[in-house]
């Protein structure tokens, strides 16, 4: 069953003179439990695609359907509520609210929903990301890798339809990167978490079930790996 369907997605930046077609009629779909890596050179449109799927940007044309819902037909606040319940997003930088503790950062989507009471879920996530001891720490008191693990925890707190990660390891050294990828892979394997991982690192991409290669805003290849 497809949790995500992308149909004819096109994004054009700028006006006539400075027109940039960042995404050009991209279509694909992702099934539940799949681990998809999206690769491509810098400027090939990966982040644009991710932002559109996450619903934080609007396309020039085309549609994104998540759990049979066309997200761009929702109003802005409906989309915000839909996002916090159904999509987990991870970025390279600036992922955490500096004034909230580890625990609160993880619970943020639920707190925004006024549902901050699920202690079991929280402790299982804390255990999974291995930061039970750091529950009350502020982001500034954590290392880069630990901060990124907190974002993974936050992305998973609401059992989203899928997790979107845009170069989550781009700012980390290779050992810490591996830890984060392992964590994401673990979530995918053991919790059947659908995962869309954007990266320009071939080695990381090779660990996915499927690799979509973007180039100049178009899909160049879409290959399923055998595991």
């Amino acid at each position: 069953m497809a949790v995500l369907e992308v149909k004819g997605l096109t994004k054009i930046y700028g006006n006539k003179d400075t027109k940039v077609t960042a995404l050009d009629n991209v279509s694909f779909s992702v099934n539940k439990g799949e681990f998809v890596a999206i690769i491509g050179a810098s400027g090939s449109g990966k982040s644009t695609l991710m932002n559109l799927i996450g619903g934080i940007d609007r396309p020039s044309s085309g549609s994104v359907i998540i759990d049979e819902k066309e997200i761009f037909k929702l109003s802005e606040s409906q989309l915000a509520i839909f996002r916090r319940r159904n999509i987990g997003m991870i970025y390279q930088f600036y992922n955490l609210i500096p004034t909230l503790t580890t625990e609160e950062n993880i619970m943020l989507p639920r707190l925004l929903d006024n549902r901050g009471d699920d202690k079991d879920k929280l402790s299982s996530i804390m255990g999974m990301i291995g930061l039970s001891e750091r529950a009350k720490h502020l982001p500034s008191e954590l290392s880069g890798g630990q901060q990124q693990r907190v974002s993974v925890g936050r992305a998973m707190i609401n059992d989203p339809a899928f997790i979107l990660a845009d170069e989550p390891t781009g700012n980390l050294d290779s050992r810490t990167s591996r830890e984060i990828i392992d964590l994401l892979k673990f979530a995918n394997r053991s919790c059947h978490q659908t995962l869309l991982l954007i990266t320009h690192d071939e080695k990381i991409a090779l660990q996915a079930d499927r690799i979509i290669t973007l180039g100049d805003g178009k899909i160049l290849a879409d290959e399923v790996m055998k595991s």
Partner: protein
Amino acid sequence: MKITAKLAYSQLKINRSRTLWTLIAIALSAALTTAVYSFVASGNAMIVNFLGENYGLYGKSYLVLLMIPASIFGIIIFAMSVTVVSNVFRISAQERVTQFGIMKCTGATKKQITDTVMYESVLLCAIGIPVGIGLGLLLAFGGIRVANHSLDDLNDLAHIMINEINLSLEFVFSWQALLLSASICFLTVLFSAWFPAHKAAKVPAIDCIRGANEIKIDRKQVHTSPLVDKIFGFEGTLAAKNIKRNHRNFRATVISLSVGVILFIGLGELGNQASAIEDVISPDVDQTVISEYISAYTRDINKVTGRKETTFLHPIDSECGNSVKQKLEEFENTSIFGIGNDLDTYYAVLPQTLISAQMRDALEDEEQRTDELEVEIITLDQENYAKLCQKANIPLGSTILLNHYRYNDFGEEVNLEPFSSTIKEVNLVKADGSTLEMPIQGILTQEEIPKELFYANTNPVRLILPRAMVRGYSWYCAPTNIGRFIEYSNRILEDSFPSDADSSYMEEGFNTRVYKINDYMKVMNIAIALVSVFMYSFVVLLMLIGLTNVISTLSTNVLMRSREFAVLKSVGMTPESLRRMLNYESILCTVKALLYGLPIGIAVTCFINLPIRSMFPIPYKLPWLAILLCVMVVFFITWSTTRYAAHKLDNQNIIETIRSESGR
């Protein structure tokens, strides 16, 4: 606690110094509002007390009289608070753009983003307003005590001059006033937070994330003239670029500072003008005490001529004036100068050729007729009249014309000789049309006229008659023992003009009083001092509100750029050079504030002088001292705050700063 409230709370906690300054600003504006409304409540109580029952009848108009200044003060406080508080929220929201982006990506709605900012304002109000109201009550309480001190003096003086009055302000604790100021302040703060909150919520998530803390800088914004580089060097250029880039943050600072400059210069000018007026109206005589008799009058329209006709109920004649003078002189060889006058009974018709050209211009300026001149009939005590006759070399019993006219030519005092010295007679006309040929035997010029005869509001034609029936009479003297003389004189007047203590001025038809010449000046002094104390306290408190903004903006500005400073330091900018850059920033900020403040302030002083100039011979003078003082104070404020922030920065480690900022 809701997550939005929690975020607001932690934002307040993280930037403690700014939170503190904002709290002070909110508390101060609450205090000022409370104080103003408490004064209105007390003033209202005083009027009720003073006017008694009648207050009900005219109450509305007096209340309006109180409400007008109160609303003007209210609007000024509101404007200042909004400028200051909204700036705080704007900077606070701007700092958190990326944070809002993360929240949006995790699914926060617009409303939730708005709420985090609004909660911040609610939390600040929850502390700031109660503190402010307490402070305001204290202020009102203290202010009323100060006012009562002066009012007591005022009452003492007023007793002598007018009948019984007893002004006293009482501190009135009014729930309505408290509630009103609390809600006004609360709304002010909400209003100030609302725009930045909505603006922050409107930024699309994608821009928050991509913008990643970088304020978009446009080429034009950082262009500085090569002149700056020539004068101030590289540090000056950096300073100018920074002010240009952050001009919105600096705007509130510049506004606060210039408003301060405007208010101080304006207030200084008001004080100057008040003392100038005092100088002009204080009589230039060596006498110290005036005993006075004045008759009441009625005014009708004459049926035959249609002219205004004034009737004095109890006029006084020269003989009576003279006998009172003699009785008064029995007190410890005091010499008395007695003068009676009547400004209302006659007008004169003169051939135009006898009126000097200067006088015709003057009368035209004052919009008076030249074919009918108002006449003042003067009579002096016998002794002083005789002296004048001698001076003019004319026999006793002559009529003397005072050939002098003083008028205010839009700020300039002009003294002139109104009539040709060939004048031999004037034709006096009464309201009923009857005429009187008055021959003139002597003419006195400005130098020959006794000082006692120069008072305000004289008529163009002034005649000294050997004897006359006039409206009022004044006995001037300079006794050695003023207090005893006043007692003595009161007794003499009481004997000469017996009156019933219970009846009013109009019932009695006349009034007598004895007062020191400088009593009026004292009353005016007290009133001026009282008003200045209140105005200055108001302005100082208002400026403190502005100052909180100056401090938080300038220091936030320095702290926000700590990374930039670290980079500058790491490429080898010396601390001296950095300090120089910050000094230039304060100079530029000062110059900007003065550029707006000074011209407007000077315009305000001109405006204040304008109506005064048309009433008194007080020309416009540039308030140099106030201007100089303002320049120094403004520079001191910006310089010391920047220095304070820079000092905090000095303790920061370069590497620490660079890492903490990039690793966010």
